[in-house]
Each structure stands twice: as C-alpha cells, then as structure tokens.
C-alpha cells in the first residue's frame, strides 16, 4: 500500500495555488488533527496504556498531543527542566551563543513545511509534513542527550520511529546511507548570514544505524510542539551519538550509496568523525569525553561519568562490532 501521498505538485495542479498560499491556520489545525488521531490510534494499540509520570518539572508539561503513548524508554531518569532544555541550545543557524537560538528563532515559520526525499529510494519527491505525520505513531520517549562539548540533558521527546518513516520511502538496495539536511534560509535564520559553517547543515547515518529502533524523529518535547530553538518542526534524535548528529529543522532526506558529507566532519575531520558515537575513552582532541556536565546541575555537583554509547550499548553495540572505534570515531 502506498502510505505517502505525494502532494506538492498535485496540489498545485488541482487547485492552481501555491502551497505557501494555504492559510497557515488551517494547515496548522490539520496537522494538529493528524497528530491527535495518530496519537489516539497508537494509544489504543498500546495495551495496558502505561502511564508513568516524569520525574520532574511536571508543571512544564503540556498536552499538545492528545492520548500520546508513553513508552518505557527512559522511565526513571530525572529530566532536565523544560527551561534549561529550551534555553541552552546549539543551533548555529540562529547564532553561535547558547542563548541565541531561543532569542532569535521565535519568528521562525515552520508551517507550512515540506520535506524533499531524494536518492536511492522508490518513493521520492516533496512531501508536506502533514502527510508524513499522519502515518506516524506519536509516542513519548525519554532519552539522554550528550553534546560533543561534554554537557548533557535528559529530554522527554515526542515523535515517532525513524525506521518506520524511512521504510515508507521504500529505499532501494543501493541505499547504504541516509543524509539529513537543515533548511537554508538566511532571511529567517540570521546565523546563516555568516559562513560559520558550510551551510546548509548536513549530517547522516549508515542505513543500519538509521533503521535501529532507537532512532527517533522528534516533533515535540515535554508534551508540547517542538520549540523552534530545538529544531522545529521536525528533527532527528539519535541518542547514542553526540548531539550534532541530530539534524534539526529537516527539509531534505537523501538516500545515498556513499557516505554523505557531514557539516562538522568536513569542518574539522580530526575532531568530529562520521560516526561520532558517544565514547568516554576517545577524547575530543581538545577536551576529555570521560565525563559530562548535566544541564541544571548544582554548582557543587561533580560531573557525571559518560557511558559508552551514552548508555545505549545493549541496543547498538552490535552495529559496530569488529570496528576500531578509535579509528572510526
């Protein structure tokens, strides 16, 4: 069955208007409706309906996603506060300071939004975000997030399995890698006015990594729509890799036969490898990766020991067996 409806072109053809002319509000409500419905379906499918409260910051929770399934992922972890998780961000498109994204991304327009799928897949084209989301089983997963700069947080993401989405594009046998690309729009993204990085921001995964059930497409956090500074409207979350692998505000997904070009990797190949798995025994050339500072940690609190694969080794270590992780860092 064809799960993805190709819209951009057909829409123009049928109604003679550009997709950008569709009123933002109706699109917004539609998307909200889709999310609600998928949440409902998924909720019904989740036998027993686990209801496990988060550890902290319940007041920050919103119910933008109705009947969202709570999953066992990360239950028992203490969460980074909503405020800290949304005010200390690396999103160079909105400035290189940690506070810049929260300050500069507020006017960022994320609706309407579409994603172009290219390369080694049978169902390529440009898709409205709604059409991608309406097939998604919305769930909440609490994941640890470890930045390459040695700070970390724990976030209750809302989203869906990356593998489920990628399968719908029907990648061919030639698809060995998948690349993700962030929007390039200097008018909206002031950080792109300077060439701090080689825009547009790109990063990617090996296909078997991408198909791992841990990989997540996030559209929300703390039960809310994803704040712009956290990569709205849709971003990648790969919890066993350093944060910069988690491409934000995705506009393009490309299946490739060869290892894709990754922005940080090309900027400083000795510092940021293609794999960039969290690994306490392979230091960044300029700082140690053995420990991390949790956001919101008390001034006197000692740093936390970083875990191999950020503690997700059981689920992902097999992807790298027989690989020298000091060479393929």
């Amino acid at each position, binding site marked *: 069955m064809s799960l993805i409806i190709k819209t951009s072109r057909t829409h123009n053809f049928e109604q003679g208007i550009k997709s950008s002319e569709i009123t933002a509000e109706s699109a917004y409500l539609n998307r909200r409706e889709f999310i609600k419905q998928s949440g409902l379906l998924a909720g019904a499918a989740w036998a027993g309906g686990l209801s496990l409260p988060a550890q902290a910051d319940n007041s920050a929770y919103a119910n933008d996603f109705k009947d969202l399934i709570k999953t066992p992922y990360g239950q028992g972890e203490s969460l*980074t506060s909503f*405020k*800290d998780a949304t*005010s*200390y961000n690396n999103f*160079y498109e909105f400035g*290189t300071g*940690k*506070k810049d994204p929260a300050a500069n991304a507020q006017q960022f327009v994320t609706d309407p939004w579409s994603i172009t799928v290219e390369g080694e897949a049978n169902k390529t084209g440009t898709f409205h975000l709604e059409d991608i989301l309406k097939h998604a089983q919305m769930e909440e997963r609490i994941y640890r997030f470890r930045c390459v*700069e040695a*700070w970390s*947080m724990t976030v209750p993401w809302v989203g869906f399995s990356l593998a489920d989405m990628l399968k719908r594009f029907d990648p061919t046998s030639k698809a060995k890698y998948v690349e993700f690309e962030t929007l390039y729009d200097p008018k909206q993204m002031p950080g792109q006015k*300077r060439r*701090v*990085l080689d825009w547009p921001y790109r990063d990617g995964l090996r296909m078997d990594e991408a198909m791992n059930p841990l990989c997540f497409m996030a559209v929300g956090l703390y039960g809310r729509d994803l704040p712009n500074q956290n990569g709205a409207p849709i971003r990648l979350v790969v919890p066993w890799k350093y944060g910069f692998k988690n491409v934000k505000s995705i506009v393009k997904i490309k299946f490739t036969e060869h290892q894709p070009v990754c922005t940080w990797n090309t*900027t400083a190949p000795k510092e940021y490898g293609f794999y960039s798995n969290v690994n306490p025994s392979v230091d960044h050339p*300029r*700082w*140690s990766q053995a420990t991390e*500072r949790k*956001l*919101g940690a008390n*001034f006197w609190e*000692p740093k936390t020991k970083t875990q191999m694969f950020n503690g997700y080794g059981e689920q992902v270590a097999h992807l790298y067996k027989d690989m020298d992780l000091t060479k393929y860092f």
Partner: protein
Amino acid sequence: MDAMINRNWLMQIKEYLPGLCFFKPFVFLLCLVPFAFYVSGALNQQLGPNPVEAMIRGFGDWGIYFLLIGLSISPARKIFKLNWLIQYRRMIGLFAFFYVCIHFASYIWFEQFFDVQEIIKDIIKRPFITIGFVCFLMLLPLAITSTNGMMRRLKKNWLRLHKLVYPISILALLHYFMMTRADYLVPGFLLLVLSVLLAYRIVRSIKSH
C-alpha cells in the same frame, strides 16, 4: 568663545577628576563588577543551565579584556595627553592577573574538583590548556614585581621584565582561538584590538630609532 569654554571645561575634567580622592577607589570597584556579577549569579543560580562553564569563560574573558585595557593605557596617555592614566596601569594589570587567577581557580575547583592528577594530565595533554597555564605562569613574576620597592630594586630590568606582557597577551588570545569551535568573530575582534595596540608600539620604536 563657546569652544574655548568647552575646552576649558573638558581640560578641567581631564586635570582634576582623576585627582579627586574618590576616583581611584571608584575605578577599583568598577573593576570588581564582573567578579561580583559572576559570584552573585552563581549564588542566585542566574548563570543559566551550565553555570560552571559561564563562570570559567566569563573570568577568562575578563582576564583578556583587562590585558587589552592595560595595553591601551600607554597609547591613550600619549595620544590624548592624559598623563594621569599611568597611575591606573598597575591596577589594571593586577586586575588582569586577578581575573586570570580566578579563571584558573574556578577551573581547578568546579571543573576538576581539585583532582591534581587530572589537572596535570589536562595541562600536558591539551595544548590550549598548556598555553593558558603558561600565560598564568608568565603573569606571576609581573604580579610579584608590581610593587614600588620591586620597581626600584630592579631598575632597568623592571621594564625589560614587564615586556613579558606582550607575549602573554598573544598567548592568551591563542588560548581563546584554540578553544573556539567555529565562530571566530569575538576572538577575531580581540585579535584586531591587540594587533593595533602592538602595531602602535612597533611604529613608535621604529620612529624613535
């Protein structure tokens, strides 16, 4: 006429303001403002989600700012004919040392929790930390010899010794550049300022020969 009066008024400020007894303590307190900002921010949890990083970087930034302010004093004094500025050079230099010290101390305390082995490993293994540490070491003799007594005792050598501030400033900026990930705007601007200040001295020394 107006211009004359204005000029007089300006001259008077230039001459007398620094002579007022409260002026030097006022400058002294002003130099402590960044320190107070970070300490009160730490106590009131207002340094953001990563307060340790904010404090260590903040103190490091101010160490560099004070080095550059210190290096501006002689040129400003000569260009604007503000002789009294010289009275503030030692204080500014010592504040640069102060901020470098608390930058290093907050790294020892909050980043490494006094783990001497880790600190030594870090200093040896990580070139940007090595360079930062060298800056600190090079500042020590300057701080120790900043007293009037030392100035008298060292005579001509005092000036020679204190020329160390030039390599210290260059290394301090190198330290900043080496810890930067991608955005060189701020360290680049500081480098521009330092370049102008050093170029001024080079030009003057060429002219005087």
